[in-house]
């Protein structure tokens, strides 16, 4: 964030972009994130959330991280409540429409213990896109006249030198790290994404480091057989971790839908016991389990089968 073009170029030139295997464990991946980093989170709301990576960052006891995401759900509660980050840049922040306003988001922001920096959804997408394109800003036509724009100090309004029209310029956002979860990628990081892409491609190309979790690692031969299906190229990826159900309790398109019973349980817990409830949740589901498999077993086989059945059903038509 806030890098000059030369700094961005130097950071990118310093990355090992060679065709190389970069498969690692969740713990090793978490070590790629430095305290103080700005971390962009892929997916949107309950979809393709890189939940295992956020889970690993909390377990690794990271601190002073700032985050950004198109729309923020329960992972935002966990970021605030675990103490790994006190700042989230996003356009909407709560568990999900059906569950109402997040008690945790309210508790932390209303007491100024943490900040929810609100931008319009499109402006966040264009900030990532500018970062991905290597330009310092992107022009846009929304937010003008609103208090959303009024409370932001890094927007510029200019008169278009071609048409004289007012346009807003939003600054490029080049995250220090991007966390992305995909259905398939190879050991080099060439990723295929099914269904909704959200902002993942721009996030990956904008970031100075990309950590990718995947349901499955496939051969590079398979990737090369349909190169027009590759959505993120290996040259932008710094770490690959195979994590089945890596978005649970959120969804991964075509593989599993959200674990609704678990999310209802979480909603009730935080509504009834607020911060105490999320603390219990973190202890039981994040810090407690010995590993990811043990975490999944806490979600329960029945829920995993049910979420998977619903997830795969998108291909039943």
């Amino acid at each position, binding site marked *: 964030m806030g890098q000059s073009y030369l700094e961005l170029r130097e950071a990118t030139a310093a990355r090992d972009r060679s065709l190389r295997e970069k498969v690692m464990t969740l713990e090793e991946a978490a070590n790629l994130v430095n305290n103080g980093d700005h971390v962009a989170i892929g997916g*949107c*709301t*309950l*979809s393709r959330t890189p939940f295992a990576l956020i889970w690993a960052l909390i377990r690794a006891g990271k601190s002073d991280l700032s985050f950004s995401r*198109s*729309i923020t759900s329960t992972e935002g509660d966990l970021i605030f409540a675990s103490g790994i980050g006190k700042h989230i840049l*996003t*356009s*909407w*922040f*709560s568990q*999900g*429409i*059906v569950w109402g*306003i*997040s008690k945790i*988001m*309210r508790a932390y*922001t*209303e007491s100024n213990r943490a900040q*929810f920096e*609100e*931008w*319009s*959804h*499109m*402006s966040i*997408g*264009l900030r*990532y*896109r500018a970062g991905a394109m290597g330009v310092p800003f992107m022009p*846009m*036509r*929304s*937010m*003008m*006249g*609103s*208090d*959303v724009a009024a*409370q932001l100090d890094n927007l510029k*309004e200019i008169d278009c030198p071609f048409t004289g*029209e*007012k*346009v807003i310029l939003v600054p490029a956002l080049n995250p220090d790290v991007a966390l992305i979860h995909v259905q398939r990628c190879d050991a080099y990081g060439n990723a295929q994404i099914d*269904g*909704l*892409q*959200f*902002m*993942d*491609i*721009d996030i990956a190309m904008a970031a100075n480091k990309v950590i990718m979790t995947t349901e499955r690692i496939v051969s590079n031969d398979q990737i090369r057989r349909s190169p027009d299906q590759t959505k993120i190229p290996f040259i932008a990826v710094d770490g690959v971790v195979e994590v089945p159900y890596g978005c649970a309790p959120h*969804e991964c*398109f*075509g593989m599993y*839908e959200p674990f609704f019973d678990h999310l209802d349980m979480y909603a009730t817990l935080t509504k009834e016991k607020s911060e105490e409830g999320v603390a219990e949740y973190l202890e039981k589901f994040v810090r407690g389990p010995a590993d990811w498999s043990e975490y999944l077993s806490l979600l329960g086989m029945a829920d995993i089968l049910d979420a998977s059945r619903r*997830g795969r059903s*998108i291909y039943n*038509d």
Partner: protein
Amino acid sequence: MTESTPYTASELLAVMSGRLLTDGQIVFAGVGIPLLAATLAQRLHGPGLTILFEGGTLGPFVVAGELPPSTNEQRCTRRANMLLPITDVLLLLQRGYVDVGFMGGAQVDRYGNLNSSFLGEPSNPAVRLPGTGGGNDIASLTQMIVAMKHEKRRFVERVDFVTSPGFLAGGTTRADAGLVSGGVFKVVTDLAVLGFDATTKAMKVDALHPGVTPDQVRDNTGFDLHIDDSPTVTEPPTDAELQVLRHLDPERLYTA
């Protein structure tokens, strides 16, 4: 056509909103009432109407009894014509491909500005709300229909925070701010359908729903509202409309 069938306030909102949509329009809709209204219009008078979901779905076919829980999960993509990145779906608004956007909000004011960010003083709010999402972009870039319950605490003189711009301070202030297209088209409530004065851009009553009195509307509105002496009255929901609604949402998830 009989007008005897009873209906809920949510059904009334969905029906009245749906009637504002015309065939062939591209409608940017959230789940709940907006989606029901758009789908109702599609089924009854707009077979060529296209629904857009913020999560990246263009032209889905909404299966009766399988309404999606949000606009960003795979359930929204059933039999869609196209899936796009979020940024590109929102850019369709900016490029001008979208005819109508559907919005709600915690507060709306005289000039159709919407607040979904803060209740109370933004620097020290009584309630931090979930925020704009795509609301600001939709309100900035296309015609918008606002559907919400008609309550005094929601219909306020001035919203605590302009999350999604309506006509700002009225008159030409919206265009002056650089928002040269779009604006609030209608506000649909459980009491009335409201529009905006062509010049002042102040909210006014277009029509009252059956059995609603002007005083009822005034009592539930936090600012002066123009109502004609003999206001038009909306056609009540028809059996056909209610049948489609109840077919779409048999479990009354959004129409209870």
